[in-house]
């Protein structure tokens, strides 16, 4: 059933967020630390476990993949509900941060590709 997939997804997120808050509290920070990342690991692990036991028929998967496909529209809605006027004041900073990070990453891709293809050519 499709709802089983969505239930599994929601369970992973709830567990991840709780774990993230617990991790935060244990470090003395009143914040969620990596809850979404933990939830992703739980989902990957959980799906593999279910698949191995043949408990992951396509309809269950649809209950998860629907939300994965809603990712971009949800990000668009998120962007549309931000305080953009406030950000525009320092807008060039956002452009600078994005461009500097991109340029540095491109340079390092070149370095890593050369390094990786040295000892073991692909």
């Amino acid at each position, binding site marked *: 059933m499709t709802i089983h997939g969505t239930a599994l997804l929601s369970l992973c997120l709830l567990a991840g967020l709780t774990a993230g808050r617990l991790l935060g509290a244990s470090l003395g920070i009143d914040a969620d630390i990596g809850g979404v990342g933990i939830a992703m690991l739980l989902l990957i692990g959980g799906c593999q476990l279910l698949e191995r036991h043949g408990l992951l028929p396509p309809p269950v998967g649809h209950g998860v993949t629907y939300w994965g496909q809603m990712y971009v529209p949800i990000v668009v809605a998120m962007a549309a509900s931000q305080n953009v006027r*406030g950000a525009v004041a320092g807008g060039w900073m956002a452009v600078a941060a994005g461009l*500097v990070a*991109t340029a540095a990453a491109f340079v390092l891709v070149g370095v*890593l590709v050369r390094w990786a293809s040295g000892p073991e050519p692909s």
Partner: protein
Amino acid sequence: MTELARQTLTANGLLAAFVVVGGAMLVSSWVSRWCTRGRVHPSAIAILLGLAAAAVAGGPRGVADLPLLSGVGVLGGAMLRDLAIVATAFGVRPQEFARSGAVGVVSLLTGLCVAFLMGGMTAWACGYRDAVSITTIGAGAATYIVGPVTGTALGASSEVVALSIAAGLVKAIAVMVVTPFAAPVIGLRTPRSAMIFGGMLGTTSGVMAGLAATDQTLVPYGAMTATFYTGLGCLLGPSVFFMIARGLL
């Protein structure tokens, strides 16, 4: 009649949001196809449209402050956003990733460190001195998801969260546009180099669109490492990177 329609839209805010966002996605796919010949991915145009709409609306919660579009705030709120991000991890196989060897892990960790470092340094250069804002903007320089997730977790202000999204968006668009031209220079030809590229840049829409414009067959390899980037960033951003930033300040 108008009053009746207004009442229906206000009472069914989430449905109105589905229609509005769906329409924005449709327009974006047209703009992408006809105005940029598919070089700029529709999702980047749609996000840009969203940010522009929020700027026009002008409130602290963007278009969600308009009663007719309050549902957009629900659709784009933390709950559904986190649900959708986690769902994208479905079907990712850690074994496949491990097969690409240490180089994938190295590129992921290097890519995240570089993004946080460069974004954080830019924020510092622009006068931000608190660890929460610097970490959030550094996270935005990773991807436009890591930014708001980190910002929300750390309690950053909405302006800083919006800045982090804008930084991530600039990066995604830059990757889409620059990749086809930079590919020969950085040696982006093989599946392995695509995995390094995905792990280093991390912005899924940017990586996928950039690789698609370079060589279609490289897309799944880049996407595979890129899907780890946002999750790893969400894990490390509000924890390790925040603590490093707090320790340095």
